[in-house]
């Protein structure tokens, strides 16, 4: 049932090359989920997210100082190793400083015909960020038009918005099924859904999601759910870790708060006569990344709500090594979870997760949760 999604994720480069061939369109690599994919779909450009390769590498040392997160260096390594040589363009929307360097070094050393830094506002709690972002989107749209040589009309924008919103809606519908006592999909499978949606044509992805949605309600997993876990924190596409927790340790991830998970698709845009304002509002109102979660800490309420809605019993808080944005939120999150009596386990991720030691820690964590159940 999930093979297609897994294949898309595992063979992302083959997919993109093939897509180019069959559509004759352009492919753009993006570095952050604040990039307004609606506008790219409107322009018939395929946006694909650039993620790491999870292999040790030695090519980024001259480009990014070692104090920045391993994820951003792994991402840059993909460029320097020419894994994405098929890209026609690259773009980033302003988020954390770390990943920005993967973009700028890529821009310097693997130039593409189109390169765009979108100053996505940080003060999303101020209404002024909406008008500002709208103006920035107008500029971005203009740049894309110039690049592709084609004007983007309101009808194009409507189409782009619809493609992306449909994808968000379908993913959310599937995720809602995970609220059930025995979710019909594992955390690992859910991960494949979101990750693959970031690197395939969403029209095809939507079709596959619709088919999946028809079959899922009847599906019964031949495994017990075990502890219902939430995972949250920095970027995470570490499939082997998720697999280990679910297959070896016997728990199930029922929800997450990651930019490679729910944060990516949780909010749809709300229709507006002014299409660009509609898109701007969506990115301002989406579940924030920690870099944009101030002055109020809105992530806390959102995480608490997910815990309640998904019957979460324990939380694994992960952080990419040196990830400042999450390091700045984690103590506050842990305090709230502690206050609610939710057990938490903190793990620091690198390019590859040390599965052996992590397994011992996860098992000890689950063991502790089970003991708490007994008394």
């Amino acid at each position, binding site marked *: 049932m999930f093979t297609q999604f897994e294949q898309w994720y595992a063979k992302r480069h083959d997919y993109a090359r093939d897509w180019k061939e069959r559509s004759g369109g352009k492919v753009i690599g993006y570095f952050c989920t604040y990039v307004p994919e609606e506008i790219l779909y409107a322009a018939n450009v395929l946006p694909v997210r650039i993620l790491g390769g999870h292999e040790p590498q030695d090519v980024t040392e001259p480009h990014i100082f070692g104090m920045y997160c391993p994820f951003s260096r792994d991402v840059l390594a993909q460029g320097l190793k020419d894994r994405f040589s098929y890209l026609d363009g690259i773009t980033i929307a302003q988020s954390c400083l770390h990943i920005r360097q993967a973009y700028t070094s890529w821009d310097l050393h693997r130039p593409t015909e189109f390169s765009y830094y979108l100053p996505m506002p940080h003060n999303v709690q101020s209404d002024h960020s909406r008008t500002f972002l709208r103006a920035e989107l107008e500029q971005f749209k203009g740049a894309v038009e110039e690049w592709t040589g084609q004007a983007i009309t309101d009808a194009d924008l409507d189409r782009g918005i619809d493609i992306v919103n449909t994808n968000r809606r379908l993913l959310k519908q599937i995720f809602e099924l995970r609220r059930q006592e025995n979710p019909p999909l594992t955390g690992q499978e859910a991960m494949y859904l979101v990750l693959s949606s970031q690197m395939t044509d969403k029209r095809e992805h939507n079709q596959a999601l619709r088919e999946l949605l028809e079959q899922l309600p009847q599906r019964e997993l031949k495994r017990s759910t075990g502890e219902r876990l939430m995972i949250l924190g920095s970027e995470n596409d570490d499939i082997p870790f998720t697999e280990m927790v679910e297959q070896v340790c016997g728990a199930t991830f029922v929800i997450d708060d990651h930019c490679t998970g729910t944060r990516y698709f949780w909010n749809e845009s709300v229709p507006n006569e002014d299409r660009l304002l509609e898109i701007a509002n969506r990115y301002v109102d989406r579940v924030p990344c920690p*870099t944009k979660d101030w002055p109020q800490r809105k992530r806390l309420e959102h995480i608490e709500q997910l815990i309640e809605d998904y019957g979460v019993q324990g939380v694994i808080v992960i952080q990419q090594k040196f990830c400042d944005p999450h390091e700045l939120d984690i103590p506050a999150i842990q305090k709230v979870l502690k206050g609610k009596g939710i057990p938490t386990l903190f793990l620091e991720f690198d390019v590859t997760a040390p599965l052996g030691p992590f397994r011992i820690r996860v098992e000890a964590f689950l063991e502790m949760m089970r003991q708490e159940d007994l008394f």
Partner: protein
Amino acid sequence: MSTQIYPTEPLQLWGKAKELREKYYLNYRDAHKNGGLRWAGGAWSFDAVPAGLGRDVYSLTSEPYGATLAHNKELSLECLEASENAGYARDLCSYMRLYWGSILIDKYPYGGGYPKPDFIWQDHICCSHAKWYQVVSDLEGGIPMWDVDVAAGPYKDVTPAKVKYIVDQLQDGVEWLEKTTGRKFDDELFIEAVKNEMRSTSLWAAVCAENKAVPAPLEEKTMYSLYVLATLSKASREVADFYAELLAEVKDRVARGIAAVGNEQVRLMSDTQPPWAFLKIFRYLERYGAVSVGSLYTFGLEGIWEVKEDGSWGPRTTPMEKGLEIKTRQQALELMVDWNLSKPEWQHFYHPQLKTDMMLRIAKEWKLNGIMLHYNRGCEGLSLGIAENRLGLLKAGFPVMTFEGNMGDEREFDENMTMARVDAFMESLGVKKIR
């Protein structure tokens, strides 16, 4: 053999700079005694705005406060450990960890406990800026906070919409200040402060530009004691007046050929904040007759620059010098925002090439022989893109030395290794120790 090539003299105004700095910290601490207000925010905050609340409003700016704590070996370790024990990661901005530590151990280096601000007035371009004060507020049980996002893109791409975004946040901020403090905002005081800020930051750039002279009238270690005033209170009349006096003294030094380092034979620049507990690196350089004449950091953290008609870099002409009259709050805000967006140290946040280009300009116009890059683990904001700066400078043919350290956490600085690197760098430049 005498190693003295140029005459030297101590800087007359050095003592005054020290006094002003101390007064600043005491004024903040004692503000409440006379019914005044205390606010906290970054060295880049728009400090001219709270100045509109009255003449008895004092600030404590975060980064220089962190550097002050870093200077004090014992206290800094106590602060860093307190932050770590409270669960904050050791690789976060070291100024920030020092700052939080001083709250946690409740110690103020100028005597007494950490003086809690009445409100927070912060700007945001580095990921740590607004989040820094979220934690301060958490630790202090809640402090009213206003943050302004200034990350609207590089100055070369500035548009009215970008300026408006920041101005609008500040307009709302003024209302918020009135509500939070119960005081009426005085536009005249505000406009006066904007003018002070422009004078301070333009005059500081003028002082730095004097260092193009050979021999350099100032060396970087001294410049740290001078530029700091702009990081404390750039919108105050005292600081603007101080820089006017300083410019006169430095011009006089240049006219008389007075050197900062008498044996100057190699001119360097550094980059990012230095490891504050190890400023002796600069003294060590002097043994080679090497003088650091500044950096993009000392020049452009607060200094505001422009390209002059002859293509060289000089102090940005203020609106007042252009004969413009600033009449309204809106106009003052717009001018102030545009002014700040041109800050050199805000540009590399968008692309390292913008910084490399400015560094190359400095290297040429200030007649440098080499560049020392501090790969500063303590500051994610200013170390951003530094590896690409190194590559860009090397590509342009400038000798570059790098050393790792941390501006505020001396546990991450290896003194012997750094000195050995300096020796090797000097050797590669063909320079011998002269004393």
